[in-house]
């Protein structure tokens, strides 16, 4: 074996306890995250469970070609991007705004109750949330009751493609706003009060303080979270879509992950669904790299 370079050897000697503590984490990642990656090879095979990962025949890029040629290819890609981008556009700033507003509230009991109320939906199962949404949007549901009060005709809202994305994003914001604001509230509590005092002496009002002190103070937190979120720009979880969509809304609701779910789990076409999933991961990885690079350039905050 080649002799290790001097620096590495002393480092190893000096930090051996630390390295020992690191070991379980490394083992965890290798066993549960890297070894299973071998399974992704079935995207290039005709996989059947009986023949296993190694025994199934190689077929090259057949499944990828089928996906790119599929009549639904452009549709699921566009839908995935559209739903995700809308969620980002409305879902990302919402908790920041909530945190900023809560930060300005001086009444302790009011602040605490608002926080608790906005967290609550996070702890309700998605199935229940969508169950409520489905009931509320029926023609005799509460949403239609309200709309008909203003003279709008009663319609089963969830069945019409034009309302699907709105309902998706609104329910998403409602469910996640409180929980996601926690991290910003934590960042806000770390802002030095002297900065505000100094600003006040300089004659800055609340709005100016927010723009010039609060936001710059939590900017790095926002950027890191934004980069991480960008890495999932081409991801929409299948659970919520599956619970919400129906044939009449396929055209705006069918996304990559639901296609993977249908072909993989329902039709047992494992190789094809793996190929689609792999394609999705690749795009996500590229998006993450891109976001990181942009962030590095504009704000000097980056993941690495």
């Amino acid at each position, binding site marked *: *074996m*080649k002799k290790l370079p001097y620096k590495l050897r002393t480092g190893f000697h000096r930090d051996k306890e630390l390295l020992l503590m690191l070991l379980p984490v490394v083992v965890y990642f*290798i066993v549960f995250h890297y*070894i299973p990656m*071998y399974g992704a090879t079935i995207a290039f095979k005709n996989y*059947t*469970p*009986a*023949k*296993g*990962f*190694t025994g199934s025949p190689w077929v090259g890029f057949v499944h990828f070609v*089928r996906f790119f040629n*599929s*009549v*639904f290819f452009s549709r699921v890609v566009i839908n995935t991007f559209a739903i995700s981008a809308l969620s980002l556009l409305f879902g990302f700033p919402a908790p920041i705004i909530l945190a900023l507003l809560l930060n300005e509230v001086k009444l302790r009991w009011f602040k605490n109750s608002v926080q608790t109320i906005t967290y609550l939906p996070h702890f309700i199962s998605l199935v229940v949330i969508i169950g409520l949404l*489905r009931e509320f949007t*029926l*023609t*005799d549901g509460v949403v239609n009751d309200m709309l008909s009060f203003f003279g709008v005709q*009663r*319609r*089963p809202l*969830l*069945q*019409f*493609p034009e309302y699907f994305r709105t309902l998706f994003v609104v329910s998403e914001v409602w469910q996640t706003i409180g929980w996601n604001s926690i991290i910003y509230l934590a960042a806000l509590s770390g802002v030095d009060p002297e900065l505000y005092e100094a600003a006040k002496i300089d004659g800055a009002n609340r709005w100016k303080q927010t723009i010039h002190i609060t936001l710059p103070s939590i900017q790095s937190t926002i950027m890191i979270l934004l980069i991480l979120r960008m890495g999932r720009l081409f991801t929409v979880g299948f659970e919520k879509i599956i619970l919400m969509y*129906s*044939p*009449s809304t*396929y*055209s705006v609701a*069918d996304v990559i992950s639901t296609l993977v779910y*249908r*072909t993989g*789990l*329902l*039709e*047992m*076409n*494992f190789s094809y669904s793996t190929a689609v999933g792999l394609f999705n991961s690749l795009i996500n990885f590229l998006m993450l790299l891109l976001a990181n690079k942009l962030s590095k350039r504009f704000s000097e905050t980056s993941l690495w």
Partner: protein
Amino acid sequence: MKKRIIGIALAIFVVLSAFGGGNQSLAPSSQDSSAPLEVTWFAELTPGIAQVVTNLGETPFAQELMRRTNTQIEFQHPAAGQLNQAFNLMVASGDLTDIIEYDILGRYPGGPEKAIEDGVIVDLTDLLPVHAPNLWKFYQENPDIAKLARTDSGKYYSFPFIRGHESLVVYFGPIVNSKWLADLGMAYPETIADWETMLTRFKNEKGATAPLTYEPALLESNNSTFVGAFGVNFDFYLDNNRQIQYGPIQPGYRQFLETFQRWYANGLIDPNIESMNREQTTFKMTTGQAGASLGYAASRLGVWLSAVKDNPEIDFTGTKYPVLNRGDIPMFSQMDFPLQGSIGDAHISTAAKDVVGILKLLDYGYSEEGNMFYNFGIEGVSYEMIDGYPTYTDLLMNDPNLPRAAMFGQYLRSSSNGPFVQRREYFEQYGYQFPQQEVALPNWAVTDVMNHKLPPISPTPEESAELATIMSDINTYRDEMRTKYIMGIENLNTFDTYVRNIQNMGLNRAIEIYTNALRRFNAR
């Protein structure tokens, strides 16, 4: 160094995959007569019985079966409504139960031949004649049913659920509120025009907010109510020249869509139709929000009738399947082949160690004694022989607290399905709880469907993969467009484009595959 790490990683992987691979050896061993044979059994817990027990093993039926066959059975049930996913996950994980009760013929992608090739189930062709004498004898005596039980290449693979009498093959059809019809002085509807008049009057004169309601899945399934009136169905069928056609691209299908679009726009169809489920349908029918629906003789019509038996405003009966012109015979309706693939078909998985023992266990259901047991339960407890007729006792028929489905399910399996031959005496007592049901079934049985329905044909594994690829796209598109047309989201003048799109998705190849499979079936 690098090579060694790769080597170690590979070694770890090989060891891990060996653990996950499962034991697939086929080693029949002679069973010790004293020690019960331990068997795991995957099966759906039918909704009727799920309200009483969480596992079939707790029921008197299963206890008695284990006693009689000297076995120790551990039943594994998927979560309610998750049968397909649970089965697919089980196959994907390779962790199979010894007995798999599932519709391999209809629902396994690629069918039974593929399931054998994939190493999921055991080929029983050589084993049945030797180790399952009762089932084999039944096949010898009923060559027509045996033909349905094997694949094109002559392989046997299951212990199937068989409907043993022609009165058992019809159990589904249109249901209307007959009290409303009497109030309005109307006869039972026969034609599509009759239906339209009836639904309009239900809406205007009876205040129905959803005159016709149903779950989309029930409309789409093989009964083809309404769409059948226009000479097509939602899937493949045989036309009058015995050629295979695909319903959703025919001109008749467009007429169906036009009709339903008009009905939907006029408020004759439930506006929330796409999100209907079983409970909501039941609620609307039994509270007078809806006046017509589709359903099963016992689990819908029977349940609804008992729910409204104290309500003088509502009564139900089953009517004939609608047709276009008075006097026509419906071209499509629900009617099963005696054997056509059921979630009650039992298969022996490749994980089974004592295949011979399991063959014996499953074959019991086809013996004289086993047939009585599966159909009627335990003599003296769940039935008595009265003048040579197996008569269910009060325990099953008149429980003060539980519906019949729940009581029957604890003592026998004829009220749902399973690996045995179903007998007509079961239905004569269970299905005809109300006189209205006795009216419904002959109405539903008026049909010409047996000349148009595809027999349970099986494409080869290679063809199946290709067919699945084509049809998964086509069916998604068909469902989407059907809903959009009916709800008026899409205008019907795009129908020609829709047809062209379906053809471009490879429909002709699919028809070719089915035609070949049909030729092989006829040659069996």
